[in-house]
């Protein structure tokens, strides 16, 4: 809604001044309050919403969506932390909440990027998967997924529309992680370390879901620890993209849209890649996904640091 300062260039003295202005809490204390609230409430939700401890594969799609409502806790805890620490709800400046939307100064480009980037790396991931393990190619796999062939070709468009209209859940995550945690982490430890630490925290927050088989299933060597590790890696890479988009656009909304489109799986090729045809299902899938996201992350990092 108004001009937004960059997330990270505040001088340490300014941080101290802003902390003093807003009350007696330092950035570290605020971050710890936020993380404590987010982890406790979300883990409690996962416990209540899955009373019979079913695995992700065993529960229906609607039950999965019910458990996924835990995604809204980061943004709720963002608001709660601001209320507790008397930080206020600025739409610009140092303690920006990033809830506003700015289209001026070419910032609309980041919204466009948010729609298209997940589609690009999802297709790239499937292509890499096929290149690494051609035996997975199955021209009729979409039938077993219950998708009509003509539906398969409007899947990216459907995922983008679903991403926009159903972005509230992703906003729940991004409003917390990108809207509160990352700006604080960047101020505390600098961007490079913050991107890694932030990704690890985000990955660990997914741990209860990974333990019931979300994302990677339950049938892989090293379950669930390897899954949690991979999730942290995935979150570091995706976190770089999402933080870049949030910082450049001055809003968490493009990141929320990107996250939602990513979750909607906007890939045509997924209808032709059958993971059950190969023994190395987990490792190949994970490697190709990491490579495809890294392909997008590397140029982003180059642009970021070149401008810096």
């Amino acid at each position, binding site marked *: 809604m108004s001009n937004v300062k960059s997330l990270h260039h505040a001088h340490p003295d300014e941080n101290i001044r802003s902390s003093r202005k807003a009350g007696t809490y330092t950035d570290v204390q605020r971050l710890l309050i936020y993380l404590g609230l987010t982890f406790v409430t979300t883990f409690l939700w996962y416990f209540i*919403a899955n009373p019979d401890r079913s695995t992700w594969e065993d529960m229906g799609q609607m039950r999965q969506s019910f458990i996924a409502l835990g995604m809204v806790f980061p943004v709720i805890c963002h608001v709660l932390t601001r209320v507790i620490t008397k930080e206020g709800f600025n739409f610009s400046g140092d303690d920006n909440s990033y809830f506003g939307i700015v289209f001026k100064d070419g910032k609309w480009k980041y919204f466009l990027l948010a729609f298209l980037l997940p589609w690009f790396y999802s297709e790239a991931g499937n292509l890499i998967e096929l290149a690494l393990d051609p035996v997975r190619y199955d021209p009729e796999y979409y039938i077993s997924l219950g998708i009509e062939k003509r539906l398969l070709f409007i899947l990216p468009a459907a995922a983008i529309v679903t991403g926009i209209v159903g972005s509230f859940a992703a906003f729940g995550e991004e409003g917390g992680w990108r809207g509160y945690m990352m700006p604080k982490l960047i101020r505390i430890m600098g961007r490079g370390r913050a991107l890694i630490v932030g990704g690890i925290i985000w990955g660990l927050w997914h741990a209860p879901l990974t333990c019931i088989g979300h994302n990677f299933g339950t049938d892989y060597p090293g379950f669930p620890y390897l899954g949690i590790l991979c999730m942290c890696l995935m979150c570091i890479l995706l976190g770089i993209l999402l933080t870049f988009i949030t910082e450049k656009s001055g809003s968490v909304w493009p990141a929320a849209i990107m996250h939602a489109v990513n979750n909607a799986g906007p890939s045509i090729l997924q209808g032709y890649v059958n993971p059950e045809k190969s023994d190395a299902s987990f490792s190949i899938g994970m490697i190709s996904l990491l490579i495809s996201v890294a392909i997008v992350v590397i140029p982003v990092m180059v642009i970021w640091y070149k401008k810096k």
Partner: protein
Amino acid sequence: MGGLLYKDFISINGKSVVRVLSVFTVLIIILRLILVFVTPSKDWLVENDKGEVFNFFEALLLIAAQMLAWVLVCYIEMWIPRIIKNDEKGKLHNFLSALPVSKRAYIASKYVFIGICVYASFSLCLVWNVIVSAFLDEGYVLDLIMLCQAFSLPLFCMILFGASVEFPVFVAFGKEKGQMIKTGILESLAMLAVGYLFFGDLNVFEKIDIDRIVAWADTHSFALTLISVISPLIALSLYYISYRISVHIYEGKERDYE
């Protein structure tokens, strides 16, 4: 812009609306969880025409959530004249002319406000659907929920379509005349419907049956997905065109401070 949006939020008594909707959401979560832990007695189980047995209270919870979604849709339709009326009543136009706010920004704030209301309400309805259907097994009630979910996006797009027609009329003629025109059109449509009930072919309604609609939705997933993709695009395009028309009308009324 933030101030203009907050003004509209106050004029619709937004805080009370948020409170009521939050209470309903918590209530629906509690009822849903109660239904998980309580074993249904025989009296709660009913059978449909196909012989499928389902829990009556689960169906009731679904109906309550859907009814509230419809109430919300009607409410947003009512907020459009209310936010215009509030400005006319408070002589806001005189006040605005003294502020560094362009007429374009003023009109944009109305459109953005209704857009946010539609987005928030649609998101809330999705959440209700997810809660209601969370612990259901495959069957009749789940089919009904999926059907409601499939049609909820086009339903909320109808609000945007309605707002696209209403805003230019209210901006051009003011709240009083605008309301009269809206009432006139709605009453004419109601009279046409009553006329059809008296003189039309009522056999058409015999073919409309919830089971048939569920069966149609099962076999026409492509059409449903296409409707879900196209309806927001059409509604948003019309909404934007309507915004440009409203700005044109509003700027033509008086010269801007710029």
